[in-house]
């Protein structure tokens, strides 16, 4: 029933190669408003690379990207942001030496009438957003370097949602976090989902995403093995997709599916 609407994102037959190695090979993936799609696969399966093409960090060799049903040109991170695509990277892409507010507004600073930075306004807005996300956070004056992993992660997430993202990409969002912080991120994802934001969750650990995702897409060796609604498959079946490339009956096979096997 979701499929009758226009997908928020459609990536069709995307390929990219680095020095002869096909990191992503004719991969197709889509995302609907208010949907959480878990993108799973081993380290090196090509999931981060595929998603970096969407966020503008890499340029694809072939394939097309459609946003809201219209062809999109994404050549750099600025283009992606213009389409409302925000990314939270695995390696926490924050500038360590400046404070939380400076990171939240990096590249999109609030300026005064004469074009200078309005730090007070930015800090005030940062306090508001961070207050919603992580009420215990109050180290606004310190460089991000001094913060804990969870606090840094909240800064990265706050940056993504601050500018009304429509499409959120989270690359291993809980890898650096403790259990309590992981639960917080889970709550946050549900909240964003109810706001109609489409979310790609990328992980190599099925437990991180299975409960949060509406649908999972599994990649192996740069190709899509298959996709499935989480209610139609079990965790073990998805593990089989990740490890063996074996597509269970409840899933739709992709170009990377193993056929005639085992």
């Amino acid at each position: 029933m979701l499929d009758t609407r226009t997908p928020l994102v459609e990536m069709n037959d995307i390929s990219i190669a680095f020095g002869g190695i096909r990191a992503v090979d004719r991969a197709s993936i889509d995302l609907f408003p208010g949907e959480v799609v878990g993108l799973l696969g081993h380290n090196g399966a090509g999931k981060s690379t595929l998603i970096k093409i969407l966020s503008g960090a890499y340029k694809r060799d072939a394939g097309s990207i459609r946003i809201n049903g219209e062809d999109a040109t994404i050549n750099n991170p600025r283009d992606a942001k213009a389409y409302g695509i925000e990314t939270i990277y695995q390696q926490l892409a924050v500038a360590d030496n400046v404070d939380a507010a400076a990171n939240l507004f990096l590249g999109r600073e609030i300026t005064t009438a004469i074009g200078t930075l309005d730090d007070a306004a930015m800090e005030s807005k940062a306090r508001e957003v961070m207050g919603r996300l992580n009420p215990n956070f109050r180290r606004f004056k310190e460089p991000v370097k001094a913060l804990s992993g969870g606090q840094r992660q909240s800064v990265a997430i706050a940056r993504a949602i601050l500018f009304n993202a429509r499409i959120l990409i989270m690359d291993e969002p809980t890898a650096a976090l403790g259990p309590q912080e992981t639960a917080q991120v889970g709550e946050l994802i549900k909240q964003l989902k109810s706001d109609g934001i489409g979310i790609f969750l990328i992980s190599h650990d099925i437990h991180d995403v299975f409960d949060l995702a509406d649908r999972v897409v599994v990649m192996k060796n740069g190709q899509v093995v298959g996709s499935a609604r989480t209610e139609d498959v079990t965790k073990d079946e998805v593990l089989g997709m990740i490890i063996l490339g074996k597509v269970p009956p409840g899933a739709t096979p992709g170009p990377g599916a193993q056929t005639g096997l085992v």
Partner: protein
Amino acid sequence: MADQHAIPTNIHPSRFAQNPLQRFLMATELDTRLLGMIGALAIIWIGFNIFSGGLFLTPRNLWNLSVQTASVAVMVTGMVLVIVTRNIDLSVGSILGVVGMVMGVMQTDILPSQLGLGLGHPMIWVLSLAAGLVVGVGIGALQGTIIAYLRVPAFIVTLGGYLVWRGAAWWVTMGRTVAPMDPTFQLMGGGPAGSVGSLWSWIVAVIACAAILIGLYWGRRQRRRFNFPLRPIWAEIALAIIGCGLVIGAVLVANAYPWPVRIAARYAEANGIPVPESGLFISHGIAIPVLIALGVGVVMTFIATRTRFGRYVFAMGGNPEAAELAGINTRWVTVKIFMLMGALCAIAAAISSARLNAATNALGTLDELYVIAAAVIGGTSLAGGVGTIAGALLGALVMQSLQSGMVLMGLDSPLQSIVVGAVLVFAVWLDTLYRRNKH
């Protein structure tokens, strides 16, 4: 729920400090590292004053020190931004040399003879300086483009530039020294004529004090607007007194240094002023090159802390990948940094050549090392992301104080180099210790 447990955020943290010194530092929000540097400078000054038999802390020496620092001080403000973005510029001394030569040829040959303005035309200094700025910015743009877009490391590009521009300086006049400079241009180099005198020095002091007071008031208003913790009133007053006190003290020193007797007598004769028995006392006041350097310092601080460009420079230094992913055009920012550095080299070239009253092949030789050393002593981290303009200016003053003090003590020049080198390494080691303890 969470709001009930939250500590109100608008109480200033200094409320919780126990020890009075700590409380003072927290309340005034002064940078302890900068205070440490001022302390080190005070030790150097007092030490040299003792060892030189009271020659160091005289108005005359301090005034000379300020003029000698000006050229390196102008360049170091740009070097901070270069180093903050994990680059380096080894070519600044050579750029200074070639730009000085271009400005020299402009004012002695091209403008007066070839364009027929005649010697002493009032526009000569402006046009020469403009030509120098164009050449400086152009060189910076070229080097910056090679670094940012062709991805050649800054170390190599500017090492090449070091040789190329020094050679170019030689090539402009085939090694001939260009002199004398235009009389108006010479004012940028200081000297009795190139100083603003006591009245104007006081006017500068009044403007500076007013700026300090307005800045404090404005900061307080902004904080109140957004309900941020305010500094205690006594801390604001202490800051105002310290700031204005420093300004007034500096002007008092500059005004206490009189023109040399003979120059004053000649001036009195020319202007028909009667010379009293005790001799004529005409104050130098603040030297023009020092005003230029201070102006550059203020503008560069503004650029570094209040503009998007400055914010991007620091973010790029902290995490270049994050800056790129945040949508910053990091390559173009890099080019702009080097263009700015070129412009500052041109201003420094004007000061040095005006002071020497000549443009020579050797102008600015070794300056790159002094500039880098001053930036590093001033707390700019070669690992990137950290540095302040004010700290770098202090670093330049420390470097020049060492040199000047050793000359006053009559130390041989090989020993001077040894001391400067050792101090540089020692200062960076201290800084490393400081940073490690802080975190």
